[in-house]
């Protein structure tokens, strides 16, 4: 397993040490080791059922660990709620509710208390600021369902920004979104990342990862590789994740292909 050495000057934010998650008798994640530094953009790749969403659920404190440990700034995920914002896959959200963009972004400011600690004016300002950051302020009063797939992702990112979480988990942020919208989301992620947020994105696309992300975490139940995409995304790692389908991937970007040039 390739594991990037942690730079002594950097601050490890998320540390997974032999993390295992089981659903009944079925292992979903086995002995996953990695250490993500603060402020990194990390792509989490792997096949369907490879454990990407399970890992996000573990980081978010939604599933218990069978073995090992997972810490966020030295704390258990259950104790770090509020520091993590999760944008789930689109089909896990109940779209029956006719909600405005404003209501969805405001969810980032809701907590256990029934009476908000913020004044109405402050809440409105935070919502507007978050929507301005994702370029959708003019859509504030529109029904969320009237937006395109890319715009919905940006609204959910605005919700995370309103929450002011340090870590953003985006599950399949690029699926069912056209190429133009993918570029918009990526630009947005870059600008959020510049503000010091740590961002993990689960994606199926392993092409050009080195242009977009600082690090890649390759999962297929276990950690196949973790580190700089241009170094760790070798044909062997791709094959370990996806079996013999390596020809489906644009291998011009793979390290071994570069060596052949």
């Amino acid at each position: 397993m390739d594991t990037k050495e942690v730079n002594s000057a950097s601050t490890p934010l998320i540390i997974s040490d032999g993390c295992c998650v089981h659903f009944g008798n079925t292992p979903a994640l086995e002995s996953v080791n990695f250490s993500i530094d603060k402020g990194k953009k990390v792509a989490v790749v792997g096949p369907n059922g490879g454990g990407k969403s399970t890992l996000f659920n573990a980081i978010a404190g939604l599933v218990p660990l069978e073995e090992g440990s997972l810490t966020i700034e030295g704390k258990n995920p259950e104790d770090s709620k509020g520091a993590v914002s999760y944008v789930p896959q689109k089909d896990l959200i109940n779209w029956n509710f006719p909600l405005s963009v404003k209501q969805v972004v405001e969810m980032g400011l809701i907590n256990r208390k029934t009476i908000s600690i913020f004044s109405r004016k402050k809440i409105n300002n935070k919502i507007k600021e978050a929507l301005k950051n994702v370029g959708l302020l003019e859509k504030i009063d529109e029904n969320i369902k009237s937006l395109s797939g890319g715009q919905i992702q940006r609204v959910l990112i605005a919700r995370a920004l309103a929450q002011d979480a340090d870590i953003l988990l985006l599950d399949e942020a690029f699926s069912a979104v056209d190429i133009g919208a993918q570029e918009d989301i990526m630009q947005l992620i870059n600008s959020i990342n510049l503000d010091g947020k740590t961002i993990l994105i689960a994606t199926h696309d392993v092409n050009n990862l080195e242009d977009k992300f600082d690090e890649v975490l390759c999962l297929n139940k276990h950690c196949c590789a973790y580190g700089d995409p241009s170094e760790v995304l070798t044909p062997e790692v791709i094959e370990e994740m996806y079996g013999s389908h390596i020809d489906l991937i644009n291998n011009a970007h793979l390290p071994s292909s570069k060596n052949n040039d």
Partner: protein
Amino acid sequence: MIDIFLEPFKYDFMIRSLITAIASGAMLSTLGPFTINRNMGFMADAMAHATLPIIAVGVFLGFSISELGVPAAILIAVLLGVIIKNTNVGEDTAIGIIFSSFFALGFVLISLLNVTINLEDLLFGQILAVNTSDVYIVVFLLLLVVTIVLLFFKQLLFYSFDPIGAEVKGLNTSFLNYLFLILLSIAIVGSLQTVGIILVLSMLIIPAAAAKLVSNTFVTSIKVSIVFGVTASITGLYLSYFFNLPSGPSMSLVATAIFVVAFLSNKIRKKGSLSTVTIS
């Protein structure tokens, strides 16, 4: 003209019925939009049917149906919630099993305990039989449901829209889940004398469904649902008085008529906006 509308209320029992009808209609239609958007209609129907054995035992022990209200509602909500969560046969199947078995158990207990209950009234409602203490209890239940919904509105909405996002944010989603089940159960048990076990679902679902067709936002749909629910309750009560009809089914049919009007107006409005687009 106004005398005709006031005529039924020269009788005390009609005043009691009117207050109970309004309270039941408002209580059910407040929760209706949450129920239909969360696809919980079948669950609500199971809750209504699951009340039968509890009513049988309660009446046997000397309580009235409305006195059983809150404790019965909590018992049903927790029972259903726990059984559904802990059986891995699928939520729909688990609800179906509880629905039919509890209903059957209710009939068996009524027979075994020799409980004196008018089954037709229990199944279809008999609002004209409510006494003053029933009225107080139903109004109290309405205030309880509305207050809790207002207090937890944003949390319930977040949890209903995005349960994973809500849990990650730190909301107590298990509490919110049971809270909604208990509120739903309270509204159902509190409305049994108005519309009965079989028809309570119609007053929960139909005003909310009609409101959804003519509303743009969720908050508006709740307000419109309450207006439709209360209108159906009052109109149904009038129809039952003037035409000597059963009150529960009359309310249910008025709610259905409101839904048909909302459905047609929604169709016409959509057709109108479509032809405007075509012309432009």
